[in-house]
């Protein structure tokens, strides 16, 4: 592909060359850009090789219980230590008295990416303080 000096011959003024070469500053910026591109590609490839076929592994932890007009809000954090994203993650909570379940509540988290955290809340009408609270993951789908 040859490049003729289009435009430079007749129309262009002498102070505005039609073809510009690259300044050192631009090369510095280009080098940073190049490093970022190579770094991002390398990161993704390494991630793919290291994390392949590792299913989501979700742990739930209660962060706080607050009283709201709608009931007792149990806030929790869901952390995914696995290598894949969990979509439509179903989280349910149970309040037990002795062995018997007295109340259940459930919530869906749209997406919980790999190695990431998301927060959510479950609302109960009874005070979890007096009862045994347990949270569990019921299921998810692949995105």
């Amino acid at each position, binding site marked *: *592909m040859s490049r003729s000096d289009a435009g430079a011959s007749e129309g262009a003024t002498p102070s505005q*060359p039609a073809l*510009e070469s*690259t*300044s050192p*500053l631009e090369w510095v910026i280009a080098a940073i*850009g190049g490093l970022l591109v190579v770094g991002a590609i390398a990161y*993704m*490839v390494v991630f*793919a090789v290291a994390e392949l076929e590792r299913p989501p592994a979700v742990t739930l932890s209660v962060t706080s219980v607050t009283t709201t007009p709608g009931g007792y809000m149990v806030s929790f954090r869901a952390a995914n230590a696995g290598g894949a994203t969990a979509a439509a993650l179903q989280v349910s909570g149970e309040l037990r008295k002795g062995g018997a379940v007295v109340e259940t509540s459930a919530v869906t988290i749209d997406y919980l990416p790999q190695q990431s955290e998301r927060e959510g809340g479950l609302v109960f009408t009874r005070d979890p303080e007096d009862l045994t609270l347990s949270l569990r993951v019921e299921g998810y789908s692949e995105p």
Partner: protein
Amino acid sequence: MSPQSASEVGLRPDPAFLRGLGRAFAGALIFALPMLMTMEMWQLGFYMDPLRLALLLALTVPTLVGLSRFGGLRPTARLRDDVADALVVLLVAALAATVTLYIFGILAPGMSAREIIGKIVLQTVPGSFGAMLARSQLGGEPEGEREKDPPTYWGELFLMGAGALFLSFNMAPTEEMVLIAYKMSAWQSVSLALVSLGLMHAFVYALNFKGGSARPDHIPAWSLFARFSLVGYAIVLGVSLFSLWVFGRTDGDSLKEIISASIVLGFPGAIGAASARLLL
């Protein structure tokens, strides 16, 4: 408003280069904003196959170099200047994506490096296209002065592919492409393919408007149709299939659905390819 001194050498910022960076930033935002504000694009950032994301980014570099040859930030002298422009544009687009996603709260503490990098990389691809085209879109010097050689036949095909990618990238990540394909009957798919092909042919070679190729009288119409519109539409379908595959929209689908979805995405792609010489 005085022209920049061409003798400026060294790390001192050249005002023309800074203006170019500003234009590139604006171009990245203009083109990538619809995608920066699309939920599927954030989600694909973390759940799409990391190898496909890496491939997409890797293929973006030569595409940008090609675009820089035909338009780009400035009239470039040599291939290495085009490479420099491509890398600068990628950095600008990554910066634009990072700032915007952070302000939107799409990047937040508690997210893994994989999630954050994935979201930024995915948005950098369309942003870099916009940044590279900023010069042709937002204007630099007067048109006449930056007019380059008319592209060769292969250059023409490359521009069509880039134009198809330019338009279809907006829509490929959305659920609607597959949903529309599900809703269409086989006859409707065939009709859409014919309409796309016809529009594509009409757009540039029959209408012959600004930027379009003038139809030389000595070349028969069927030859133009076969060499440009038909080949161009095949490229459009290829680009559509690639975009759908990259975003995981073909995984687990039947061949019929994959073809149908490619035709659906090929509709905007065909418009993009046909208007490539106007857009790019």
